[in-house]
């Protein structure tokens, strides 16, 4: 504030003395005087700290950045466009993925992760399984009978030797 007054008084002194310098005003309007007064310290500040104040281009880019950020944060439902791939682009990408997938699969020798052995296995729909009717005891007996018979038949399978498997050729 003191600086403002000083510069104002100094200019007044110059104008009163009638000397025309580069700092003397053309108009003696108090309003313009005030604006001039206000500019002086900001000019001083800029000359003193040139890097601290944003330049015009920086200011513009900052404003643009704010605008872009705001635009990207707005959900504009009407402007949502579903980016649909062209048919050829889709085909190209599918082919590319298939090739890469085959290459990577061969290279890395991917194996499915080992399943943990657990007595309590996952069932797709336990309620369906639990709500089914139980097996009748007679059916169970029949099944056991056939299974035992099949097991016995399997155990009785024997190779019946009839002729030699290795036959010597008569090479002259």
């Amino acid at each position: 504030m003191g600086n403002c007054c000083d510069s104002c008084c100094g200019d007044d002194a110059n104008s009163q003395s009638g000397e025309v310098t580069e700092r003397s005003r053309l108009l003696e309007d108090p309003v313009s005087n005030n604006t001039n007064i206000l500019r002086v310290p900001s000019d001083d500040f800029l000359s003193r700290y040139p890097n601290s104040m944003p330049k015009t281009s920086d200011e513009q880019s900052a404003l643009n950045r704010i605008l872009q950020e705001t635009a990207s944060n707005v959900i504009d439902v009407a402007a949502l466009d579903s980016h649909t791939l062209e048919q050829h682009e889709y085909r190209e990408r599918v082919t590319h993925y298939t090739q890469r997938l085959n290459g990577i699969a061969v290279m890395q020798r991917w194996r499915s992760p080992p399943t943990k052995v657990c007595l309590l296995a996952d069932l797709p729909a336990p309620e369906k399984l639990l709500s089914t009717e139980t097996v009748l005891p007679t059916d169970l007996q029949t099944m056991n009978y056939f299974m035992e018979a099949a097991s016995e038949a399997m155990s009785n399978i024997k190779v019946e030797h009839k002729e030699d498997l290795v036959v010597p050729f008569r090479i002259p």
Partner: protein
Amino acid sequence: MVEDMNKYLRKLLSKIDGLYCIIISDRDGVPILKVCSDDSPDKATRTSFLSTFGIATDQGGKLGLGKTKSIICMYENFQAIQMNKLPFVVTFVTSRDCNTGHVLALEAQLEPLLPVLRGVVGDT
């Protein structure tokens, strides 16, 4: 091998009653791995449908609630569950009365597969 990956996905598919389809695609909806049962609805497996997740995720992130992890859509006849595994989108299509929690629990079992697939979409 790719067959092993498909076999693994098919095994996951058979674990859950009413799960019709598992698709691992890129964010534009181009499928990388896909296993479907006969009951799978054709329209829910199209690229145009799968790619909507990417758009919805982008916009959903602006709500200030964090990153979108999964989107569950329940229709009259089907459910579509999509998981954010960028650069992949994992889509499950199920029947309307399928247990959604079971499907969400498959996420952990898909994890071993995704690092391998990351190399597939790496350069695109």
